[in-house]
Each structure stands twice: as structure tokens, then as C-alpha cells.
């Protein structure tokens, strides 16, 4: 059988043949997006999901998801905002306001607002105050202090929950959207006067009064039960823009409380609104998945009179657009269909390069799959559980593109439910397949797996030391004798694993003065070197033998997306979010010759234009010149012995070479061997010399698990 296998594989001048375990049973469904908040100062985007996860995307670094805070079952986030520069706050239905520590990547504190579930939150234009809208109809003002936030006062309580809030850019007034009406408050006023509004608006012209604007419940002649004001935006000229559940975008004059203009844009709810800083354009998202762009344009070509005009509709979503944001150059939207869509505004983009292209981010930019090569096991990480699968096998051989008959199907071995309400942050299975470790925000779990023939048994390793509470990344050494844990606060723990027990060997403390957490780890196959990287500073390389810092790879402008150390040579390969790949020799403490060459020549322009980051790097045990890496849409083997492609050569050639002339062959043979067969690709790893495993997650399978979108009539419209 083995001989047949040997015979079937011809070692061509190419990369040779692989048997690929094509796995599509990783039943991963990302959570829907609930809020997005754009920070102008750092050009970062905070995104919260329905499971309470908060992700930070760096828009300057190729839209890389550089940080994340794992979710919590009871912490449904309803509002997200930046305040005081770059401090991030969220509020949710558990009634708490949470501040996130963006350095240590944990929750700084949670504070109960004592107003029931919080539906909305807005930071004042100066960033020094926070306003939250609660279930009981109260609007509460908090002062942002350097360390915490402090309750200041309540605004007058309204009849029903406050679903949306917006500050006037001067910080003097606030508009609050509730059910069936919008209120306008004067922030400075000591006396909170309130008029009674029986029917139509009745105004007290005192500046301190609340103006209340009643919203028509009617929707295309049919009276709905309630009209929910999903979003409000207060402009500096006093206009309040509201979006509501009846599909309307309405413009109000806050001084007189009158309706100025009404756009009926959808047959369903308009759920979100965001205004640009210049107040010349805004974006709204509807439950039908459509995003509309409104712009302030001159009435005639050279008059100064301007009016709001609905300019462009975009349909990049299939489900509710729950959140929108407006960066200076792009419209950002996200919703129930889990995609984050960044749509650059062509008129605002100065250079028409690849950054001007539409981005659709669906998958996390980190690994959710780990693999025990020796036992051919795959560990899948979900929000609240882990799944362990054993790959099947085949005895057949075939040629390129063949699907081989299975002699044994894949087995689902284990479903490990996480304890507690917290989401799993990270997980790992050891290469030998006998250890599983995972971590939530507050607890670290280690399990011992025993394999007896086809049966497995699981035993939890108890009494974890106190310092092992929360891990951002877990890694086992190649021989499964050591466990490396990156905790928040920047420390790295090294633990020796023994039969059923463990021993703490050492803790690498962070460099003095930094508290940045390490999110990526790599260990050399010989177990001597450990590389760790945070989101911004360089990559640190530690000697495990001598338990000290060996060197630091010079910092690079873009965050690291993947790390790996090659066997034998101990070259560290680093992929960055701008799609650059570096190779750094750990023993020599310098970049390798190959790395210098490729930096000098530059990567192929199509390589640099890929829009998903490289999430995993590995090596071929028998071919030291090969580097294997993948992103969500391609898998690539870099053969360092071949010439580098230049911009004129074809980077990706999907067709196999059929009796082509030598000239063509000579022209197209280059170092990057790419396959785009498997996509979206969540994980790819070399199991042995001739076997690969590819974990795919087809988008259709995700959509099939989402709730059905709003049905639109196809005929007779």
C-alpha cells in the first residue's frame, strides 16, 4: 500500500502532490454585529457583537482586527462609544457601563447605572461626559474622570425607554429618541422644566425646556402600534435627524420642534444613523439590509442654499443593518448577517488605489482551530464550547483534483462545554493530542486526554495556580512537554507538563514600562526559542533554555498577524497586516538574506492587494526552503529557492502546465505557489510530508444558520 502511494506520487519540479483533508464540518457562525464606533484620532473602529464580544479594527493597518475582548452571556452590548480621546466604553442590557483596557485587553471596570437595561449611550463632543439612556426612561449624565466615570445627575425621566441619544456639537443640548417621540434637553440648565404634551407639540420657548417632537406612527397609511426612534443625530445648525421603525428619515428643527422634511426610505425599520464630522453627509441602515447615503448638496450649481438629498443606496447586507459609522472616507456598516462592510466614498479617496475597494470582513483575524498532527485531531473553538474531531483516512491514490473514497470517515470525539457565562478566548490542543487547554476571561482550564484504541477519556487537571487565570494565547511545545501561556498584563508563563500534572518553570515579565499584552506566540520545533508579539511593539524572542530575553525583532509599522519558527534553521517568519512577510534568523539576530532580497525587490502587487491577513504559517519537515502560509482566500507555498515574481509575471496561475512551451514555463515559474481552491479558509496545516488539512467555512452554511431576512416581494412590485 505504501509502495503504491510512493509510486503514485511523482516528484515533479513543482511542489508535488498533497492529500488534502477538506473539512467543512466546523460549524462556526460569527455573532451578529450590534454596534460600531469609529475613532477619528486613532483611525480605529470598535465593533461589538450580539454575544458581547468587542473587536478593535485598525483601519490604517489594512483593516486588521488587532484586539478583541471576549463576550459574556449576560452582557449584551447595546451601545458602544469612544470618549476622552481613545477610551472605549460600552453599555448593555445588564444595566452596566463598561470601560475596556486597550493595553491589557481586559475589562477595566463595570459600573451599574441603576436605570435598568441601558439602550443607548453617547459621549459629549469634548469627550468628558457620558450620557446613557435607560429602560426606565431616565437619561443619566456621567463625568469621565481619568481613572473611572462618576455619576453626575439625572435628566427628567421620560415615559418610556431611551433608545437613542445624540449631543449637539456644542455640547449644550441633547436629543433623545424614545418610543413615538423625540425629546430635546438643555444640558446646562439647572431646572428641568417639562411641558405636558397631550397631542401636537406645544412649546415653551425658554431655552431650558424640553422640546418634544411627536413622530407620526402612520406608515403608508397603516397605523402601526408604536413608532420606535432607533437613532437620532443632532447637527450644529439645530437640525435633529431621526430614523424610526416606520422606515422614515425625518429632519426636525429643534428650536421650534417642527418637522422640516420627511424621507420614507424603507418598508421596514431604519435602525441606525451616523453623521460625518463635517455634517455634509450621513448614512442610515435599514432592516432590509440596505444602507442609504444622504448628502448635503447645493440646490443649484452655484447657490449657497443646500439641502439633504438621498444620493446612493448600497445593498451589501442581507439582514438588518444594526449599526453604521461614518469615517472621513468611508461608510461602515454591520448587522445581523455578521459582515462588517467598509465602503469607501470614492469622492473622498485621494489616491485611487486598492484601499478604495470595498471591504467585507466576515471571519475573525485569529485562529479558532488547532491541530494535533500526530493523532490527526482537530480542535474547534466556539464561543461556549470546544469540539474535538478525528480525521478520516483513505487508502486510495489519485491525480490532481480527484476526490478519494474514504476508508474511514471523520469522527466527532468530544464536545466540551465551557463552564460559566464567559466566552472562550483561546484554546489549544497539544501536538501529541493528549492535552487540551482553554481560557475564558477569568479561568484557565487544562485537560488530559487519554487515548485507548478508538476511545478517549478526559480528565481535568485541577488546582491551577492562581496566576493562571486568563490567557490570551496558549501554545504547546512540539514535543508536548511544555505549555506556554500569554496572560494579559504582558507576562508569559512557561509550564512543564508531566503525566497528569504540571510544574511552573518560569514567567517572562514584560519589558519594564510596557503593559502590552502578547497575542501571538510561536515556539521553535526544538523547543529552545519562544517568540511572542503584541499588537504594536516588535516581536520578542526568548531563550527557553536560558529563560531570558534573547532579542527583539525591530518594530514594524503594521501589526503582526502570524508568527512561526522554522525547524533546524530557527528562522522566525513574521507576517504583517500590510501583507509583508519577513524572515529573521534568531541565532544571527538579523534578517535573512532571502528576506532582504524580497524587501529590496518588493512583493508582487497582487500579493499586497489581498484583503485578508495571513493567519497561520507552517513549514515542511523535509523541504527547508518551503514556507506554507494561508489567508482566508488562498493557500501559498513559498519556495525560497525559486526566483521572486515581479509585477509583470502572473502571480496566480490556476491552470496546470499543459504542454506549454519552455518559454512560458521559464517566464512563469516563481517562488509563490498559490492555490485558491479552498475558501473561505479558516485553517490549513501540514499533517505530514504529503498530507494537508484545510478547514473551510462556506458562507452559504453560515447564512443558512442565520434567521431568515425580511422577505421582499419579488413579483408584482
Amino acid at each position, binding site marked *: 500500500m505504501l509502495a503504491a502511494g510512493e509510486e503514485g506520487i511523482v516528484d*515533479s519540479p*513543482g*511542489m*508535488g*502532490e*498533497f*492529500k*488534502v*483533508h*477538506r*473539512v*467543512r*464540518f466546523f460549524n462556526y457562525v460569527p455573532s451578529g454585529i450590534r454596534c460600531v464606533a469609529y475613532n477619528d484620532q486613532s483611525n480605529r473602529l470598535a465593533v461589538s457583537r450580539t454575544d458581547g464580544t468587542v473587536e478593535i479594527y485598525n483601519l490604517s493597518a489594512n483593516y486588521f482586527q488587532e484586539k478583541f475582548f471576549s463576550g459574556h452571556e449576560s452582557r449584551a452590548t447595546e451601545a458602544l462609544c469612544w470618549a476622552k480621546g481613545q477610551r472605549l466604553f460600552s453599555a448593555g442590557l445588564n444595566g452596566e457601563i463598561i470601560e475596556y483596557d486597550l493595553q491589557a485587553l481586559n475589562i477595566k471596570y463595570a459600573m451599574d447605572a441603576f436605570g435598568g437595561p441601558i439602550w443607548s449611550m453617547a459621549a459629549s463632543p469634548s469627550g468628558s461626559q457620558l450620557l446613557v439612556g435607560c429602560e426606565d426612561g431616565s437619561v443619566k449624565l456621567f463625568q469621565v474622570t481619568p481613572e473611572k466615570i462618576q455619576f453626575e445627575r439625572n435628566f427628567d425621566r421620560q415615559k418610556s425607554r431611551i433608545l437613542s441619544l445624540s449631543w449637539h456639537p456644542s455640547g449644550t443640548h441633547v436629543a433623545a429618541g424614545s418610543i413615538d417621540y423625540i425629546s430635546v434637553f438643555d444640558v446646562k440648565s439647572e431646572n428641568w422644566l417639562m411641558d405636558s404634551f397631550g397631542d401636537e407639540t406645544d412649546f415653551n420657548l425658554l431655552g431650558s425646556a424640553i422640546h418634544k417632537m411627536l413622530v407620526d406612527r402612520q406608515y403608508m397609511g397603516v397605523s402601526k402600534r408604536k413608532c420606535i426612534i432607533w437613532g437620532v443625530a443632532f447637527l450644529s445648525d439645530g437640525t435633529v435627524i431621526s430614523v424610526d421603525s416606520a422606515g422614515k428619515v425625518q429632519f426636525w428643527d429643534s428650536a421650534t420642534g417642527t418637522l422640516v422634511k420627511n424621507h420614507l426610505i424603507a418598508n421596514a425599520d431604519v435602525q441606525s444613523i451616523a453623521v460625518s464630522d463635517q455634517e455634509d453627509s450621513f448614512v442610515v441602515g435599514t432592516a432590509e439590509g440596505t444602507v442609504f447615503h444622504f448628502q448635503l448638496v447645493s440646490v443649484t450649481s452655484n447657490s449657497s442654499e443646500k439641502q439633504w438629498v438621498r444620493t446612493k443606496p448600497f445593498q451589501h447586507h442581507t439582514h438588518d443593518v444594526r449599526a453604521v459609522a461614518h469615517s472621513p472616507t468611508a461608510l461602515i456598516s454591520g448587522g445581523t448577517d455578521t459582515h462588517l462592510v467598509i465602503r469607501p466614498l470614492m469622492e473622498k479617496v485621494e489616491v485611487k488605489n486598492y484601499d478604495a475597494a470595498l471591504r467585507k470582513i466576515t471571519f475573525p483575524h485569529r485562529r479558532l482551530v488547532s491541530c494535533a498532527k500526530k493523532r490527526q485531531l482537530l480542535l474547534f473553538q466556539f464561543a461556549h464550547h470546544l469540539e474535538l474531531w478525528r480525521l*478520516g*483516512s*483513505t487508502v486510495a*491514490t*489519485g*491525480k*490532481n*483534483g*480527484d*476526490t*478519494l473514497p*474514504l476508508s474511514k*470517515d*471523520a469522527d466527532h470525539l468530544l464536545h466540551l462545554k465551557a463552564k460559566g457565562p464567559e466566552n472562550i478566548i483561546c484554546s489549544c490542543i497539544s501536538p501529541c493530542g493528549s492535552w487540551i487547554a482553554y481560557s475564558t476571561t477569568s479561568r484557565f482550564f487544562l485537560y488530559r486526554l487519554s487515548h485507548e484504541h478508538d476511545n478517549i477519556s478526559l480528565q481535568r487537571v485541577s488546582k491551577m495556580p492562581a496566576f493562571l487565570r486568563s490567557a490570551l494565547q496558549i501554545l504547546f511545545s512540539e514535543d508536548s512537554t511544555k505549555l506556554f501561556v500569554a496572560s494579559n498584563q504582558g507576562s508569559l508563563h512557561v509550564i512543564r507538563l508531566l503525566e497528569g500534572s504540571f510544574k511552573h518553570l518560569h514567567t517572562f515579565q514584560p519589558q519594564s514600562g510596557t503593559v502590552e499584552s502578547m497575542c501571538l506566540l510561536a515556539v521553535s520545533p526544538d523547543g529552545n526559542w519562544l517568540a511572542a508579539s503584541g499588537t504594536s511593539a516588535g516581536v520578542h524572542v526568548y531563550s527557553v533554555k536560558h529563560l531570558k530575553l534573547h532579542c527583539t525583532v525591530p518594530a514594524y509599522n503594521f501589526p503582526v498577524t502570524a508568527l512561526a519558527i522554522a525547524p533546524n534553521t530557527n528562522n522566525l517568519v513574521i507576517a504583517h497586516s500590510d501583507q509583508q512577510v519577513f524572515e529573521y534568523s534568531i541565532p544571527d539576530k538579523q534578517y535573512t538574506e532571502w528576506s532582504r532580497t524580497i524587501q529590496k525587490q518588493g512583493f508582487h502587487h497582487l500579493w499586497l492587494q489581498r484583503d485578508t491577513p495571513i493567519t497561520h504559517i507552517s513549514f515542511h519537515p523535509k523541504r527547508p526552503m518551503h514556507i506554507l502560509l494561508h489567508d482566508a482566500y488562498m493557500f501559498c*507555498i513559498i519556495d525560497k529557492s525559486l526566483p521572486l515574481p515581479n509585477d*509583470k509575471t502572473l502571480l496566480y*496561475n490556476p491552470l*496546470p*502546465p499543459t504542454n*506549454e*512551451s*519552455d*518559454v*512560458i514555463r521559464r517566464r512563469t515559474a516563481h517562488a509563490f*505557489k498559490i*492555490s485558491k*481552491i479552498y475558501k473561505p479558509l479558516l485553517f490549513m496545516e501540514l499533517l505530514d510530508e504529503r498530507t*494537508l488539512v484545510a478547514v473551510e467555512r462556506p458562507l*452559504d*452554511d453560515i447564512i*443558512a444558520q442565520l434567521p431568515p431576512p425580511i422577505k421582499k*416581494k*419579488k*413579483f*408584482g412590485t
Partner: protein
Amino acid sequence: MAALEEEFTLTAVPLGSGPDGPLGVEPSDKTDQFLVTDSGRTVILYKVSDQKPLGSWSVKQGQIITCPAVCNFQTGEFIVVHDNKVLRIWNNEDVNLDKVFKATLSAEVYRIHSIQGTEPLVLFKEGAVRSLEALLEEPQQKIETVISDEEVIKWTKFFMVFRHPVLIFITEKHGNYFAYVQKFNSRILSKYTLVLGQEENSVIQSFSTSVDRKFISLMSLSSDGCVYETLIPIHPSDPEKNQRVVRSLLLKSAVSGNARSGVGLMVLDQDHLAVLGPPLPTSKECLSIWNIKFQTLQTSKELPQGTSGQLWYYGENLFMLHGKFLTVIPYKCEVSSLAGALGKLKHSQDPGTHAIPHFVNWEASQESGLGSQNSEQSKRIKESEKHIEVELRKFLAIKRTPDFHTIIGDTVIGLLERCKTEPSFYPRNSLMQLIQTHVLSYSLCPGLMEIALEKTDVQMLQLCLQQFPDIPESVTCACLKIFLGIGDDSLQETDINMESVSDYANTVQGEKMEEQAEILQNGFNLEEDNCENCAQQLSAKPQAAVEEAALCPVIPKRAALLNAILHSAYSETFLLPHLKGIPAQHITLFLQYLYFLYLKCSENVTMTLPGIHPPTLNQIMDWICLLLDANFTVVVMIPEAKRLLLSLYKFVKSQISICSELNKIEVGFRELQKLNQEKNNRELYSIEVLELF
């Protein structure tokens, strides 16, 4: 001032035996080095400043080079074709052409073009074009035939316009010339017929081109010895259509009219032309540099040993055959001054063919138009119109300035003023040309449509409706009245853009359509229709009504005009009052046409009409509603219209029930789709074989 410097000979040995001189001189990727292909078997690389060959390659005995060698600027390799179909690619280091890369193509090559900044192109004799790279991937690929039988490529050139490669080639068939322009950014091939004008019988002997932002200026040297210019737009308004381009005289008697050979032409820069040939029937052949702007001869050089009529110009060198040797004449041109330009005026020997600069005197032509000689008047006006047309063409050929649209607007207003004062003056072609600049609007020239309405110029009205975004509803309605009222006979004579009407309107009257009954029922049973009761009184005739609707009630030309109305923008409130003024039988006719279109729309799933720019279903429905709103009382009074109304009602009703059925079915289908998807998802795990190359 243009000057020719001392000539020198490149080859010490005479070039290959061919009677027609060398095949070509092409630049290589290094300045000062040129590839010379003789018409036999040899390619020589020359360094011009040293006047010596750097390399020479020959094909085997028995083979013959058929296309000049070029250099691939992207790789530095040389490419040549021998025996029409065999492509060879080699390097400077290669010695033997027999051993270099070879590809045999499936069709005969006319030329290989290679210029800086883009990959080489191969033009086949049948007019097809391939990039070299694409060709090499599959040398035996099928090459399509672009030009017709007996059409022969005469000349070709490849150049860059705004970093986009553009290829032009000229073909000839039975004395007619055609220009093909291929743009590679849009992959559009436009075809133009070169109209030779009065010099119908002349043979074009040589071509050359220059390019600016919008036009390819094609110069041609005819057998009458004159140089003509033809402007070919780079961005044609309608690339699909075969367009005609007129040529205008640029230079009179540049060479002797009866010179049969040794005549050539080359554009040097925007003002200068090099002409090869005998200036007088008796004289020796001569290289002359002409200034086009001042119509003067700048300099000339005699070539006593004769020449082949081939001329190449690269950098600052002119290459030509002098006797048996390839000769290089360096050419320098400084900025022309008037004094310098006027310095030499040759050809004084022959007063008949004196090069007269043809300046245009606007005043004179204006006045000539105003002349009151009765018999002469109409002729003069015609001339004046023609003249304006020519001038306009020249004006439109120049670059667009920021105030282009105001200039166009002013021009139109000026022309309209004259139309008013002079009833017989109607520069129709010029006005059409101006409208087609796409910058006019109704408000820029309010009088234009009024005059067109007055003259019942439906073609102009159609064009205005298509181009102007801001036509008032009253004018739209006036157009509609004319379109409905004009007689079929007078319509047949007009030249109307028919692109919005496809063959559906061509249905010959009286021809029956069998599917009609099916369309009406379309999954819906007529018998059950409640409306049948109210239709009882008319039940004798419903089939007739149906048949009526199956045939287009108007001729195709009228349909095209009505489609222009359907496409125009309007506001209901302003349009309705005007619609009331349309006679009842016209309303009926229009309704019949709209009903016909509606039926046609319903014939396919997408609810669209065939054709390039057909009216949409929404436009049709809106107009039906509008017409009925405006004229309901009138329509119900006319029996014919009443019948139409009834069938329309029934049809709409059937459509509504179909839609509701479809919506019901859709839900079912979606469930089926879901089941199907689940079935496909079973394939959750497989082991496959992957080979990376």
C-alpha cells in the same frame, strides 16, 4: 526652423535584393539602436551614431521574412515573423535564428507592433489582434476574421493615448478605404469609412498619423499629389456603428500628381510633415519638409538615386532608402517663426498648382448668406450652411475648454438668431452636430426646439428629447402631438434613430401571432373572470381587439419617436393639463401603442422589451395612467378606445393574479431550495488530491 542635416549611409553593403526596399526600420530598447529588416532573410541591429551593425541574424535559405522585426520593450527580446506564420523570439546573445524560440501560428501575420510602455501586439492579415503574451500561451488558437473578403490591410499604426494602447489600421476594398480603431482599454473596435470627397477616384498612396486627446489625425497622400487630413475620434459616440469620416485638404500638390512610386508621407510634429517624392513630374525624387500651419516648404533634399517611398522617423532621424542604401538624415526642428516660415515658397514655376493657404473668412461667408440675389440665394445659403458645418467640425475637433458648453450654447443661439431673421436658413446638420456634443440643455438654447417644432423636424426633436434633461412638459407634449399627427409618408423619408425599437415593431401588419391567446390567459382562466359579465356587450369582438393589440399599431419610425417621449423626464402635475389638448384619435393611437408595448413586455420573465434602449415597463405603465387620467372621459366615449380599455383592464387584472400566484409559489420554491441546500451540505468531509505547480 526645420532643417535637414548631412545624410549618411547605414549599410556599406546594399540591402537585400527586394525591389521594394527594406521591410522596416524599428527602434530597439536602447536609444540609438535600430532593427533593420530587409525584404529577404536578414535582420540587422544598427547603432546609428556609430553607423555600424551590432548584430545580424538570418533565416534559413528558402524561408523569407514577412514582417519587420521588432523589439519587445518589456523583455528586450526581438521578434520576427517569417513565412507569414512562423514567429521567432530571440535575444541579443543568440546567434542562430534557427535555434531560437519558435511558435507556428494558425493565421498569417500582417505586422507586429511594439512600443514603449505596453506589450507587443500582433495584427493578423484578417484584421484580428492579439497580445503577444496571449498568443504565446496558445499559439495555435483560432484567429477570427474581422475584415471582409477582398479587403486588404494597407497600413497600420499602434500608439498610446493616455497610457491606453490604441491600434489603427486602414483597409482597402475596391477603391474604398476603411479605418479600424481598436482601443484596448475597452476592447472596442470601431470602423470608419473614409469618404474621399470629390477626389473619388484617387488612390491613396501613403498614410501617417498624429494623435491628440480626442482625435487621431490621419494624413493621407493621394495619387493627385495632395495631402488630406481625416479626423477620427478616439472616443466615438457610438462605437458600434460604422461611421463615415470626411477628409479635408491639408496641403496641395506636395508631390507631382502622376508620380506612381517612391511617394511617402510622415508626420514629424504637429506642424511639420515630411514628404517623399518628386515635386514635379520631371524632377528627381526629393525629401521635403512642409509646414502645415503656414503651408510652406521648409526645406528639401534631392535623392538623385531614387527612393522606395518608405520613410521612418524615430527620435531625430529620418530613415529612407536612397538608391540601394539605407540612408539616415538627421532632422532638427526649432520653433517656427513667421518670417522663417515665409522665407521659402517654392513651386513658383507652376502658378496653377500654387499652394494657396485656404483661410476662412467668416464675415465673407456670413455676408454671402445675406445676399439678396433671389436665384443665388438658396444656393448661397446651402453653401453657407455647408461652410458652417466644416468650420464647426474643425472647432469641435480641438480640445475642450472649461467654458466649452457656454461657447456651444452661444453658437447655437447665434445660429438660431439667423434662422429667425432668415426663414430659409436652417443649418440642420450643424445643429445636430452641436446637440450631439452632449453639453447642451433646453435652458441653454430655448429657441432650438421651437424652431424644430415649427419645421416639424422630427429627427431633431427626437435628438433633443434624448439629449436634453430639462425639457418643459409643454414642449414634450407639443412633440408628442407632432409625433402622433405626422403622416406616415413624411415619416418614411426621415432618418430617425431606431435603436430604441427592435424588431417587435416591425411585425408586418396583418401577420397573426399565434401565441396571443396564451399570453392573455397565461396560467389564468378567462372563463372565471368576473369581468366577463361586463364584457358581454362586447363579447363579439374581444378576439379582434386582441389581434389588434398583437400588431404594432404604428410604423417603426413613429414607434422610435414615441419611445423618445416615453424616455423623457416629466412631472405629472405639469404634464397632465397639456395632455388634455391632444385629439382623441391620437390618444387612442398612443394608448394602443402603449398597450402593445405592455403586452410585449409581459412576454418575457424579466418584463423588458428587446433592443438597445427600450422603454421600461414603469415608463409604459406611467404613461398609460397619465393618458387615462387626462382623457378618461374622452376615451370612454369612443367605442374603439372603450374596447381597448376593457382589454387593458382584463390584462392588468390577469397580471395581478399571476403575480400573486407567483408570490405564493416563491415561498414553496424557497423551501425546496433550502432542502436542496441541506442535501448539498452533506459533503462535509472529503479527502482530495492537490498538486501545486
